[in-house]
C-alpha cells in the first residue's frame, strides 16, 4: 500500500510540497498513503463525504468545522496539495525555523497562521470578524445541552465584550490575537507527525 502510494506521487511533486509545507519526505509519503486510503472515489481528491467517513470525526464536536477548513472557499474537493497545506498548520515550529529571517513568506505553521486557522473556525462567513452569532454557534457545539440558550447567549455577550476593544461588538482577528497573546499557541496547535 505504502509503496504503491509513493509510486503514484512524483518526485517533483514531493519536492514542491516539501518546500511549501516543510514536511519531510517520509512524512509526505506517509500522509499520501493516508490520503489515498481516505480517497474512496480514487480520483485523487477528497470530498466532504470522504472526511465524514472517519468515525472519530462524527463524535468530535467541531468535526464538521474542521472538515470545512480543508476546503477552499466554494469548492468541495481537495487535492493532496491542499490537504497537506492544511495539515502543515499543525506542524510544530522547529528551532531552525524560529531563527530564520522573515523575509520569505511566512511559513504555514507560524503562530499567526495557527491562530488564523482557529479564527477561521469561528468565522463562518469569512468577513474577518467573529460576530455574536458565530460565537454562539461554536459555543453551542462545544458545550452540552445542560446550559440553556439564555445562558449561552450571555456567555457569548460577555466573551465579545471581553475581547472587543473597538466597540463594534465583533471580535476582529487583531482582537483575537490580543486575547490569546499569552496562550502557548505554538504548543497547543501542534501535533507530532510521524517521520
Amino acid at each position: 500500500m505504502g509503496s504503491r502510494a509513493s509510486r503514484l506521487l512524483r518526485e517533483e511533486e514531493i519536492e514542491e510540497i516539501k518546500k511549501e509545507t516543510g514536511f519531510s519526505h517520509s512524512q509526505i509519503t506517509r500522509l499520501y498513503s493516508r490520503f489515498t486510503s481516505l480517497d474512496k472515489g480514487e480520483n485523487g481528491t477528497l470530498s466532504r463525504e470522504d472526511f465524514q467517513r472517519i468515525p472519530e470525526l462524527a463524535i468530535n464536536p467541531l468535526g464538521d468545522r474542521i472538515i470545512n477548513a480543508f476546503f477552499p472557499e466554494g469548492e468541495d474537493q481537495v487535492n493532496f496539495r491542499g490537504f497537506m497545506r492544511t495539515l502543515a498548520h499543525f506542524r510544530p515550529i522547529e528551532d531552525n525555523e524560529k531563527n530564520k529571517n522573515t523575509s520569505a513568506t511566512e511559513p504555514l505553521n507560524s503562530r499567526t497562521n495557527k491562530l488564523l486557522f482557529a479564527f477561521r473556525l469561528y468565522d463562518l462567513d469569512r468577513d474577518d470578524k467573529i460576530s455574536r452569532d458565530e460565537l454562539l454557534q461554536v459555543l453551542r457545539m462545544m458545550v452540552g445541552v445542560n446550559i440553556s440558550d439564555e445562558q449561552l447567549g450571555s456567555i457569548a455577550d460577555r466573551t465579545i465584550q471581553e475581547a472587543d476593544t473597538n466597540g463594534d461588538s465583533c471580535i476582529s482577528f487583531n482582537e483575537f490575537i490580543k486575547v490569546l497573546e499569552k496562550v502557548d499557541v505554538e504548543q497547543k496547535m501542534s501535533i507530532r507527525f510521524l517521520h
Partner: protein
Amino acid sequence: MATSWLLKLFLCVFLMACGGLSLPSEEAETQNTQRDTGTGSSSNATGDGGHGAVAIAALRIVTWKWHHITAPYLVALWILVAWLCKLIIESNHHVTNVIPESVLLICFGFMLGGMIWGADKVQTFTLTPTVFFYFLLPQVILDAGYHMPNKLFFTNLGAILVYAVIGTCWNAASLGLSLWGCHMGGLMGDLDIGLLQYLLFGSLMAAVDPVAVIAVFEQVQVNGVLFIIVFGESLLNDGVTVVLFNVFDGFVSLGGSQIDAAEIVKGIVSFFVVAFGGSLVGIAFGLLISLLTRFTKNIQIIEPGFIFVMGYLSYLTAEMLSLSAILSTVFCGVLCQKYVRANMHEHSVQTVKYAMKVFANGSETIIFVFLGISAIDKVIWVWNTGFILLTVFFVFVYRFIGVFFLTWILNRYRLVPLEFIDQVIMSYGGLRGAVAYGLAVMLDENKIKEKNLMVCTTLIVVYCTVIWQGITMKPLVTWLKVKRAEVNELTLLEKMTNKMFNHTLVAIEDISGQIGHNYLRSKWKYFEEKWMSRILMKPSARKKQDEVFNVFHQLNLKDAMEYVAEAERRGSLEFIRKESVVINFRKKFESEYSEDMPDMRANMSNGHRATSTTRERIPSVSVEMHKHTMKAMTEAEAVNAHHLLDQHLYKSRNQHRHGFSRSDFIINKDEKEVQEIFKRTMKNRMDSFQSAKMGVSPKTVIKHTKNEHQRKMPKGKSISQTKLCYSCDEDFEFSEGDSTSGYDLPYPSFPMRDSRPGGGIENSAFVSDLNPTDSLQTPDWLAEGELDSSMVAPSLRGQASPPSSPIEMRRLGLLRISTRSTDTKQMNNDQLPLPPTPPPPPPPSGHM
C-alpha cells in the same frame, strides 16, 4: 548521660507528636488515638527498647506532672518557634526578595541550634529520619500531589520520568564512581570507604529534593513547563532513590563477594516493584477517597478530614509494604483532586485547600529550621577537604552533564524542545535537601565507618545547593530572561479557544491517521467520562462539569462582588433584603448608576476617602451581609470572597429566580455527551445534504438541532427579512456604536425574544445615544422579565456591571445600545408614554 538520653527521648516523642499534631484538627478524635499509638511506639522504637523510658519515669516520680506535659508542650513550643521564625522573615519583604525564605529559615536554625548548643553543650534537637519521613514529609507531598497541575504534569510525564529515572541513576553512579576513583587516586587521604559504600553515598545524594525545589521555585515563578519538569522529577525520583538506597544498603551488608548476577537482577526487579507498586497503592487510595467523598454529604464538618487521613494512610501503607511512599501519596493526590473537588461541598473544598497549605507550609518551615539546627552538632563534623569539596563539585557538574545529555535526547522527540536556558535552570535547580539528609542519618554506623563524614558532607551539599543556588537562582533567572509564569487571567475566549484547540488537534490526528498524545488524551477523557466519573462522582456533580461555563460562573461571581461592593459604597444594599422582584433592584441599580455617572469621575479621584465615609453610615444594610462583604473585600484572595458572596447570591437568586447559577438547570443531562454530539453532527450533515440537493450552497450557517433554538435565533432567511424591514424603515439611523457593524445589527441581542420588527417610531437607539445617562426607563430585558419570571439573568456585566473607569463606562454604554437595537424598538412600542428623558431619580443617600 541520663539527661542526654532523656532529652533525646523527649525530642523523639515531641517530634512524633508534632507530626500528629499537624494533622487536621477536625480529626481530633482519630488524631488523639493516633498520637497515642504514635508516642507509644516511639518510646518502644527509639528509647533503646523502651526500658530507658521506664527507668526515667520511675526516677522522676516527683516531677510527674511536668514530665507528663513535656512532650506535647515541647512540640507546640517548637512549632511555634519555627513559625515565628517564618513570621519574622516574612515581615521583611526587602530581605526575602533577595534571599529566599528557605535560606533564611536555615540561618534561623543555625542560630537556634547555637543557642541550644550553648545551653546544653550537646545538640539535643536534630531532625531524625523517623520524624522527617513519617510526620513532616507526607504533608508536603500530599499537598504537592493534590495541587498538581494535572494536564501539565501528564503532558510532560515522559520527560519527567526520563529525568527522574535515568537522571537519578546517572547522578548516583557517576558520583559514586568518581569519588571512588578519586579515592583510589589518593585525593582524600586515608578513608575507610569501599566502592559499594561510595555507591550507597552516591545514591542518597542523587535525588533532587521536592521540599527544597518547591521552596526555591515557588519564589522564582518560572514558566509552567520548566517548573513541572524539575518539580515532577523531584517527586518521582523517590522511587529510584528508595530502590538504589535499599539495594546498595543491602549490598554493603552482604559484602562485595556475595553479590552475583541474581542479586543484581533482584535489584532491578525491585525497582519496578517499588515504583509501580507505590503508584498502584496511591491510585487505589485515590479511588477510595473519591468514592468516599461521594457519600460524605451528611458529615460535612469532617468531610475534609478524610482527604488528609486517607492521604496519610496511603503514605504509611506504601511505607509498610516497603514501596515508594512519595510516589504513592503523589498519585493519590493527583487522582483524587478532580473528584474530590466535584463531590465535596464548596466549603469543604476550600477547607481542604487551605488546611493542606497550612500543613505543607508548616512542615516545610519546620524542616528547614531543623536542617539548620542539625548542623550545630560537634559530633557530625568530620572534616575531609578532599571528600567534601569533590562531592560538592561532582554533584554540581554531573547534574549539568546529566540534564544536558538527557535533554539532548529528549529534544529529538519533544514537540516543543527545551531551550538552552531552560536546561541551565533545570540543572541549576537540582537542589538536594532534607531527603538526602534523612537518608544519610539512617545509615548504619556499624556497616559504614565514615558515617559522620557522610552526614557532614550531605549537610554541606544541602547548604550549598539550597543556600547558594537558592540565592543565585532569582538573579540568574532574571539575567537569562527565562520565560516566567504568566499570570492566568481567565477570559472566556481563551478558555473556549483552548478547548477548540484540543478538539482541533484530535480531529487533525484522526484525519492524518496518527495516534498521538491528543488521541490518547481524548480516549482517556472518554473513558473517564464514561466510567470513572460515573462511579466516582456524585450524579449532581457530574452535571455541573463544563469548563467554559465554569469560567463564566467565576467571572460572574467576580462581577457580582464588585457590584455589591460598589452598591454598598453608596449604602444601597437593602435590595438584598427587599422581597421585591428582581426588577426592582435592577431598576434601582440602573437609576443609581445613571444618576451617578457624572459623579463617577469625582468619586474615583476622591478614592478611598469617600468610600470610608460612606461606609460609616449604612444603617439599613443587613449587618451580616455587610460584615461578610467587608471581610471579603479585605481578603487578598478573591476565591474566598467568591464564596461568601456565592452563598448570598444564590439565596437571592432563589428568591428572585435569578438563574445565572449552574445548579439551576431545568434540562437534565442524562444522555451522554458523545451521543449528543453525534446526533447533532448527523443532523447537520443531513441538513447540509438536503440543502445541497435543493440547490442551495452547502456552506450555509450550521443549523441547530433544537427547534426552539432556531426559533429564537432567526438566521438565514429570517435575517434577510429583518434586514429588509430595517432598511425599509426610513427613520432608522445607525447609532454610533453600530455604524461599523451593520451586519450583525439585525440579530436580536437576547435570544429569548422574538424579533418583532416594529413600526416606524423614532429611533430609540439614536435617542439613547444622545442620552447616555438615560437608563431609568426600564430596559427591555427587564420589561420582559416582568412578564416572564422564570427569565434567566444574563451576564451581570453584560447589562449593569459597575464601570470602574470612565472609558469602560463609555464602552459599556455603546455596547448596551448596540446590542439591543431591535429590542429597544419593541420596548418603545410597549412603553410609548415613557418620556425620552427620565425625571432625575432621587439622589442616593451615600452622597448627601
